[in-house]
C-alpha cells in the first residue's frame, strides 16, 4: 500500500506545473517547422517563426494590408520613374550573434536570395522584380553575377539601393514577406554559407537552403532568438539586445502535437495558449463557450478559389466522344460565353456558404480577397438562377447544346471536402436543368491534378490561391492574364484584360491601378471565365488571458496566423 501511495505521489507531483506560465506563450500545432532559413522560407509554418527571429526592411502597419511601415529600414525613397528604391537603415541594431547590423548584411541577404532562388523557395518573385525573370541562373543563362550585383548595392552613405529593370508597384509589399528577412552576413559566411562574392556564386545557384547551416543556427535581429529546435518543439526567448521595445512574453514554445484531441485537451486545461484547432465546425462544437476560451471570429480570408472552365482542353481522353452529341464535349466547349454564364448561374452560392462554410462566408466580386487593395465591391456577381442558366444553355452552341446535351468530366483534389461539395452542388443543379446534361466528378491526387491541369488536360477543376504579398497583382495576374500562372488551366484570353493587367503592373499611381483592376473585374463578370467560389470567414481560438490578439489587430499577411500579430505584440494577464 505504501508503494502505491508513493507512486501516486510521484505521478501527481508536478501536476501543478502544467498551466502555461504568464511569461511563456505555448502554441501547439500539428506539423513541423520545415526551415528557419529565410532564404528557403515559403510556407506559413516556417514564416511564423522566421518573422519573429529575423526582421524585414518593412512590414504591414497594424492590421492594414495597404499601408507599410519601416522595420529594419527607417525610411525609403522611390526615384528614377519607380525603378530605384533607396532605403535608410536603422542604426544600433544587433544580431543575436552580437554582430552589428549594417548595409552589407541587407545587400548579402537579397543577393543570396537572387543567387540561390531554389525551386522550393519564394524568391522567384524577388527575382522577377530585380532581374526581370523568375528563374535562377541555371534556368536563365542571361543572369550574370554583374546583374545580381548591380540589382542590390550599398552606396557610400550606407544606404541600400535596389535597381529595378522596370517599375514594380508590388515591390515594397514583396519586401515585407518573411522570406526576405535580413540575415547576418558574418555569421552565415562563418557557418559555411555562400561567401557573398563572385568567387563561389555559381556553386549556390538553385541550392535548396531548407536544411542549411543557417537553418540550424539562425542569427537575426528579431525580438526573439532561437534557443533550440528539437524533434517536437521550437523554443525561443526574448532577445536582450533587441533594438525595439522589450516584449512582455519572455519564452515562446511551439510544440508539435499531431493529434487534434490531444491539442484540444491541452488548450481546455490552459496548458496551451493557442492551438491549431481544426475546422470552424470543430471549433464551434468542441471549444466555443468553454471556460477560458475566446473565439475570435470574422477574420479576413486572403485566399481565392474558383471553378475553372478550360476553353482549350488538350486531352481527348477527357472529352468523351469529343462532340456535342450528349456523350462528350468538344475541346473548345467552354469557348462559348453562354456555356460559361450558364454554369455561373447554375452554382448555388448560398448553399455552398451554408453547407461548406457553415453560414460564415461571402460571395466576392472578383478573384481577389476583399481586404486587398484594388478590390471593387461594386462589380456585379452571379446569383443562383436556374431560369437564367437554362436561358444561356439554350442559346449556347446555336441551340445544339440544349438539344443534344453533354457529358462533362470534372475533377477536384482528393480529400478536399469543400471542393467535392462545390462540384456536387454544380452537378446536381446542371443535371436538373436538362436530363441530357451529365457531369461526372472525379477525385484526383494533388500531383496528378497539378500536372494534368497545367498541361491543359482538365476540362473543369476547382483550385485556389493564397497570397505571397499583399498586392492585387499576385491574384489578378495569376488568374486573369494569359501570361499568368493559371492561364494553362483556363485558356481564357482577353486582349483588353491582358493590356489592363500589364498596365497595372507598371503603374505606381494607386487610384489608377485600382481603376484598372476594377475594369478587369467587370470584364471578367461579363465574360465569366470562372465560377467564383464564395470565401469563408476566418476564426481563431485563444485563451482568455492572452492580450493583444483581436479581430482589430489581426493582419492576415503575418505568418503567425494564430493571432495575426508578431509575438512581441502579445502579453498575458
Amino acid at each position, binding site marked *: 500500500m505504501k508503494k502505491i501511495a508513493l507512486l501516486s505521489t510521484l505521478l501527481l507531483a508536478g501536476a501543478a506545473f502544467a498551466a502555461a506560465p504568464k511569461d511563456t506563450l505555448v502554441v501547439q500545432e500539428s506539423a513541423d517547422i520545415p526551415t528557419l532559413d529565410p532564404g528557403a522560407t515559403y510556407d506559413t509554418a516556417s514564416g511564423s517563426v522566421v518573422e519573429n527571429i529575423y526582421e524585414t526592411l518593412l512590414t504591414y502597419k497594424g492590421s492594414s494590408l495597404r499601408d507599410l511601415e519601416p522595420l529594419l529600414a527607417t525610411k525609403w525613397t522611390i526615384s528614377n520613374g519607380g525603378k530605384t528604391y533607396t532605403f535608410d537603415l536603422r542604426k544600433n541594431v544587433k544580431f543575436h550573434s552580437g554582430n552589428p547590423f549594417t548595409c552589407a548584411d541587407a545587400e548579402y541577404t537579397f543577393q543570396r536570395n537572387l543567387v540561390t532562388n531554389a525551386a522550393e523557395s519564394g524568391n522567384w518573385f524577388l527575382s522577377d522584380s530585380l532581374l526581370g525573370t523568375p528563374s535562377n541562373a541555371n534556368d536563365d543563362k542571361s543572369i550574370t553575377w554583374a546583374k545580381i550585383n548591380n540589382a542590390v548595392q550599398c552606396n557610400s552613405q550606407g544606404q541600400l539601393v535596389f535597381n529595378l529593370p522596370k517599375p514594380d508597384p508590388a515591390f515594397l509589399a514583396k519586401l515585407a514577406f518573411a522570406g526576405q528577412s535580413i540575415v547576418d552576413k558574418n555569421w552565415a559566411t562563418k557557418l559555411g554559407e555562400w561567401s557573398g562574392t563572385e568567387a563561389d556564386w555559381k556553386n549556390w545557384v538553385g541550392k535548396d537552403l531548407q536544411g542549411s547551416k543557417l537553418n540550424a543556427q539562425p542569427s537575426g535581429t528579431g525580438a526573439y532568438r532561437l534557443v533550440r529546435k528539437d524533434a517536437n518543439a521550437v523554443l525561443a526567448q526574448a532577445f536582450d539586445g533587441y533594438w525595439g521595445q522589450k516584449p512582455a512574453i519572455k519564452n515562446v514554445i511551439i510544440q508539435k502535437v*499531431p493529434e487534434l484531441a*490531444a491539442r484540444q485537451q491541452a488548450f481546455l486545461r490552459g496548458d496551451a495558449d493557442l492551438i491549431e484547432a481544426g475546422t470552424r465546425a470543430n471549433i464551434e462544437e468542441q471549444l466555443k463557450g468553454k471556460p477560458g476560451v475566446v473565439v475570435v471570429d470574422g477574420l479576413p480570408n486572403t485566399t481565392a478559389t474558383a471553378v475553372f472552365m478550360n476553353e482549350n482542353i488538350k486531352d481527348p481522353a477527357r472529352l468523351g466522344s469529343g462532340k456535342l452529341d450528349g456523350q462528350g464535349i468538344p475541346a473548345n466547349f467552354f469557348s462559348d460565353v453562354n456555356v460559361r454564364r450558364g454554369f455561373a448561374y447554375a452554382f448555388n452560392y448560398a448553399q455552398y456558404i451554408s453547407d461548406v462554410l457553415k453560414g460564415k462566408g461571402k460571395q466576392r466580386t472578383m478573384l481577389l480577397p476583399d481586404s486587398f487593395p484594388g478590390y471593387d465591391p461594386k462589380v456585379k456577381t452571379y446569383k443562383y438562377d436556374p431560369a437564367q442558366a437554362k436561358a444561356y444553355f439554350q442559346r449556347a452552341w446555336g441551340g445544339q447544346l440544349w438539344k443534344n446535351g453533354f457529358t462533362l468530366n470534372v475533377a477536384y483534389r482528393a480529400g478536399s471536402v469543400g471542393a467535392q461539395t462545390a462540384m456536387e452542388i454544380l452537378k446536381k443543379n446542371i443535371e436538373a436543368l436538362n436530363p441530357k446534361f451529365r457531369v461526372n466528378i472525379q477525385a484526383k491526387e494533388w500531383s496528378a491534378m497539378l500536372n494534368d491541369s497545367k498541361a491543359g488536360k482538365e476540362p473543369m477543376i476547382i483550385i485556389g490561391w493564397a497570397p505571397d504579398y499583399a498586392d492585387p497583382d499576385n491574384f489578378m495576374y495569376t488568374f486573369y492574364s494569359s501570361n499568368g500562372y493559371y492561364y494553362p488551366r483556363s485558356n481564357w484570353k482577353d486582349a483588353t484584360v491582358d493590356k489592363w493587367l500589364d498596365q497595372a503592373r507598371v503603374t505606381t499611381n494607386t487610384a489608377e491601378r485600382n481603376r484598372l483592376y476594377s475594369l478587369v473585374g467587370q470584364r471578367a463578370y461579363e465574360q465569366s471565365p470562372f465560377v467564383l467560389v464564395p470565401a469563408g470567414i476566418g476564426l481563431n481560438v485563444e485563451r482568455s488571458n492572452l492580450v493583444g490578439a483581436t479581430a482589430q489587430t489581426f493582419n492576415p499577411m503575418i505568418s503567425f496566423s494564430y493571432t495575426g500579430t508578431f509575438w512581441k505584440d502579445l502579453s498575458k494577464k
Partner: protein
Amino acid sequence: MLNFIIRRLLQIPLVMLVLSILIVALTMLLTPAQRAAGYIRSEQQAAQLERIIRDRGLDQPFPVQYGKWLSSTLHGDLGFSKASGQPVLDTIKARLPNTIELSLVTAIPIILLGVWLGTLSALHKDKFLDQVLRVFAVLGYSLPSFVLGIVLLAVFYGYLGWLPGAGQLEVINQFSVGDLKRYTGMLGIDALLNGRFDIALDVFRHLVLPALTLIIILSATILKVMRNSLLEALSSDYVRTARAKGLPDRTVNLKHARRNALLSVITLGGFLIIGLLGGSVITETIFAYPGVGQWVVQSAGQLDIPAVLGFALLSALVVVVVSTVTDILYGVVDPRVRFD
C-alpha cells in the same frame, strides 16, 4: 554459438542492400511529379514542379537514382528529411533513444505481465479468473491503440488531471533541458545521470500514458499466446509422466510445462520488441512523443523518401539484431535447440 552470431551479423549489410533496392524501386513506381509534389507546400510552389524534378534528378533512370542514394549513404549521408527539417541521420540519432526509452519502460512489463496472466489463465482454465482474463485479452487485442490512447488521455489528463498530456516535458523544464550533458540520448536516464531528478520525474510521468497504452494492448497478446501454449504443454505426455512420477504440481506446471510454453512467447516477444523499436507509431503520434514512429508517419504522409529509406534501414537493422537475439534465447531456454 559464436559462429552463429557472427554469421547473423554478417547478414545485416546484405539484408539492408536488398531492402534498399526494393524500397527505391517501389518509390520509382510513383511518377516524378508525384515525388516532386512531396516538396511542395502551396499552390504557388506548384509552379516550380518541373524545376524540382530537374534539380533533384527525379526523372533520371533507376540505376542512376539508386547509385546516387547508395553512394551518399555509404558516405554517411542519408539525405535530408523535410518532415523533421533535419538530416535523416541526425533525426534518427535524436529520436531513436526516445523510442528505446519508451520500449525499455514497456517491454519488460508487457512480457512479465503477459506471461504471468497467461499462466494464471491456463492454470485456472474455465474458472472465474480465467473468464476475466480472457475478456481482458479480447479487449486488449481488439481495441485499437488509437482509441485506448485517446481515452486514457481524456480521462487521466483531461478529466482527472493526474498525469501530463502530450509531449515529453512540461513547459517549465523545456528550456533547462538543453543544459543536460547527454550520455545515452535517453532523456529520462540522462536526467538521472545529471542528478536532475525533477526533469527525470517529468520525463517518466510523461511516459506513463503511452506506456500504459502499449502495455495493455501488447500484454493481452502475450497472455493469449502464453495461455494456449501452456494448456498445450499441460496436456502433453511429458507432463503426465512428470505428474505420474509424483512431482509436485507447482514444479510440473512452472518448471516443466511453462518452460516449454515460453518458446512461443519468446518468438512473439521478439516481434513485439521489433514493433516497439520500429516505433510505436500510433501511440507516439497520439501522445506527441518524439520517437521515430511519429516521424515516420509524417514522413510517409509527405512522401519524404530519404526519411522512409532511412527508417527502412533502421528497421532492417532492428529486425536482424532482435531475431538473432531471439534465436540465441531459444537455445538458452530449450537445450534441444543448439547452433553449430
